């Protein structure tokens, strides 16, 4: 342990050195050094590293590492889940979408939110009662460990890596813009801090970093929304009237975001079922003591997320009235070329500029630091979920056939964390200039088409067999990936073909259906002896999922 503390201290000092040298470099290159932002960010990093140090002393077993010992309360977990969901991409992306398109941003928010009640009604409780560390525990409960865990782990790792790429590229660009740091320095800094949080502090540190960040983000966004509303005497009517004067009536109605019924339904399915198949979100249900706390988690999470989306809607409109056409935030060079009053850094910077408009340099610094903190917290949760899939599903269950001891398993997950961190840094740098618009959509499509159907049917459908789950899940995975590649974003925008082979942006309607049909067909036609035993084991599993008899409890601390 002593040795570990020394390594830990060394890494802290090392990362501060990286930060310091980076800022100096940024000053030379960009001259856009944001001092309040950097001061607040250093305070955040210091505090979270302190938490990591505290958490490291309490993380002694594999259970502590994966689930914080199972001792997180429903309220805390709700906040952490909301934190996982309120990524920098959703804060800046959705407020930017509202800023650009008005009402369409709200359509997106609603889609992201409505998955939560369904997770509560259908998934949360059985998940908590059947699983231990990962959702593959549940999927493989009565099926064959090796094939199911391999497939579930592949789905998890694919989702995690895609999500990580999107977060890393976003973070590099954001930090470059906000702090005046170089892109590579920013990406490496995020990667190194994330590795520190996860390897030393495990789930306990990751959860608290997420809770603190969620609190800061909600506070900052609340202040911005209040400042905007105070400007208009808390009348939505006058705010909207001013926005319409600036941008026209179109901002008040649905625009072109979802134009045809197939796209609308497909997007809805991807957002709803995708959320229920995200490994880093599902993993959070194992950090609470029992099913009761799991339910409370979703209740609080839904409240925080819903509140946050209402705030981003106000913030987007606030940016329309206070940032749009404000000469202070205009990108003059870009306007000279293409016209149309573009803002510095693009539409996704609308919330950042608004923070300056309502609170000056100091508040801009605060929001910038919070945005950076958000990225750190989200990538940490993602990496922990990916590392658990590698160590708990692949190493302990597939390679060691369930005979690995806890310490060895924990060591593997720490090594996996470092490797995933390095992959994230390399991918982040490699994808800097790539169009990554499809990446999050692909992650959601895979989660909805491979992870969710297997998880859901393993909980509720007696006749599910290993053969059905493996073939059907693979069909879902392959269909999702193929349709994204053949669709308009990758096939036309990235590969430069004239016309998309698959005409829709969102494949979920087709790939989720394919997965369910595949699983159904290859399960009911499975007449093997093992399949019979798997069907018979359903009753016992169902009783445990419904009552929690025999479920994992919280460990004593």
């Amino acid at each position: 342990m002593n040795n570990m503390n020394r390594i830990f201290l060394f890494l802290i000092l090392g990362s501060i050195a990286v930060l310091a040298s980076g800022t100096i470099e940024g000053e030379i290159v960009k001259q856009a050094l944001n001092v309040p932002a950097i001061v607040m960010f250093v305070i955040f990093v210091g505090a979270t590293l302190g938490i990591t140090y505290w958490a490291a002393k309490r993380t002694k077993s594999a259970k502590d590492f994966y689930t914080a010992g199972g001792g997180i309360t429903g309220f805390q977990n709700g906040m952490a889940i909301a934190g996982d969901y309120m990524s920098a991409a959703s804060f800046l992306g959705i407020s930017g979408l509202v800023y650009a398109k008005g009402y369409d941003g709200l359509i997106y928010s609603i889609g992201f939110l409505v998955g939560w009640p369904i997770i509560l009604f259908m998934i949360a409780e059985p998940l908590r009662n059947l699983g231990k560390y990962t959702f593959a525990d549940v999927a493989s409960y009565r099926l064959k460990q090796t094939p199911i865990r391999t497939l579930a782990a592949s789905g998890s790792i694919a989702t995690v890596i895609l999500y990580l790429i999107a977060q890393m590229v976003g973070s590099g660009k954001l930090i470059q813009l906000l702090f005046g740091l170089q892109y590579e320095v920013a990406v490496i800094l995020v990667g190194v801090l994330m590795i520190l949080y996860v390897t030393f502090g495990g789930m306990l540190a990751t959860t608290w970093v997420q809770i603190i960040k969620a609190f800061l983000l909600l506070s900052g966004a609340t202040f911005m929304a209040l400042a905007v509303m105070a400007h208009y005497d808390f009348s939505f009517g006058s705010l909207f009237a001013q926005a319409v004067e600036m941008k026209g009536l179109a901002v008040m109605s649905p625009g072109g975001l979802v134009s045809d019924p197939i796209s609308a339904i497909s997007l809805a399915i991807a957002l709803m079922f995708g959320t229920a198949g995200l490994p880093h979100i599902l993993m959070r249900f194992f950090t609470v003591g029992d099913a009761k706390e799991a339910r409370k988690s979703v209740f609080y999470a839904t409240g925080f997320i819903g509140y946050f989306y209402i705030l981003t809607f106000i913030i987007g409109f606030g940016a329309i009235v206070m940032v749009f056409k404000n000469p202070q935030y205009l990108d003059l060079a870009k306007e000279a070329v293409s016209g149309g009053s573009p803002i510095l850094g693009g539409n996704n910077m609308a919330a950042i500029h608004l923070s300056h408009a309502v609170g000056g340099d100091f508040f801009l610094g605060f929001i910038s630091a919070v945005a950076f903190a958000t990225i750190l917290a989200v990538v940490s949760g993602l990496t922990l979920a990916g590392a658990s899939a590698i160590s708990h599903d692949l190493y302990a269950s597939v390679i060691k056939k369930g005979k690995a001891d806890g310490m060895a398993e924990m060591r593997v997950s720490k090594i996996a964390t470092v490797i995933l961190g390095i992959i994230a840094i390399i991918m982040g740098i490699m994808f800097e200039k790539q169009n990554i618009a499809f990446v999050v959509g692909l992650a959601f499509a895979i989660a909805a088409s491979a992870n969710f159907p297997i998880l859901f049917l393993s909980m509720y459908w007696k006749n599910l067999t290993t053969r059905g789950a493996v073939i059907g899940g693979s069909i879902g995975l392959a269909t999702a990936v193929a349709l994204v590649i053949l669709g308009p974003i990758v096939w036309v925008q990235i590969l430069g073909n004239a016309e998309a082979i698959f005409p829709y942006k969102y494949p979920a309607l087709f790939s989720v259906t394919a997965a369910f049909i595949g699983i159904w067909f290859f399960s009911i036609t499975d007449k093997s002896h093992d399949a019979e035993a798997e069907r018979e084991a359903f009753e016992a599993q169902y009783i445990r999922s419904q009552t929690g008899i025999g479920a994992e409890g919280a460990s004593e601390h």
Partner: protein
Amino acid sequence: MRKELVDKIKANPDYQHLVKTRSAFAIKLTITMLVVYFAFILTIAFEPSLLGTPLSADSVTTIGIPIGMVIIVFAFILTGIYTKRANSEFDDLTNKIKKSVKEN
């Protein structure tokens, strides 16, 4: 779980009651959420101008804005309704089942 225990719990009237009422309740709430959401999203797909109707003649605010906000609040209220009932009524039943299992 041993076979006898499975059979015993399955035959427990409290267990049967729990599974029946909770499943019915969860399915009802799920369908409610899906109906509300798909009504919203299909309106956008087929009749977007409907949501663009102004609240009153002299207002720019459209009916779509309060509707959107209400759906967000509605989703939260649904989770509250489920959590409240599950954490009292369903948990009481579960504890009763657990106790009867322990007694033998």
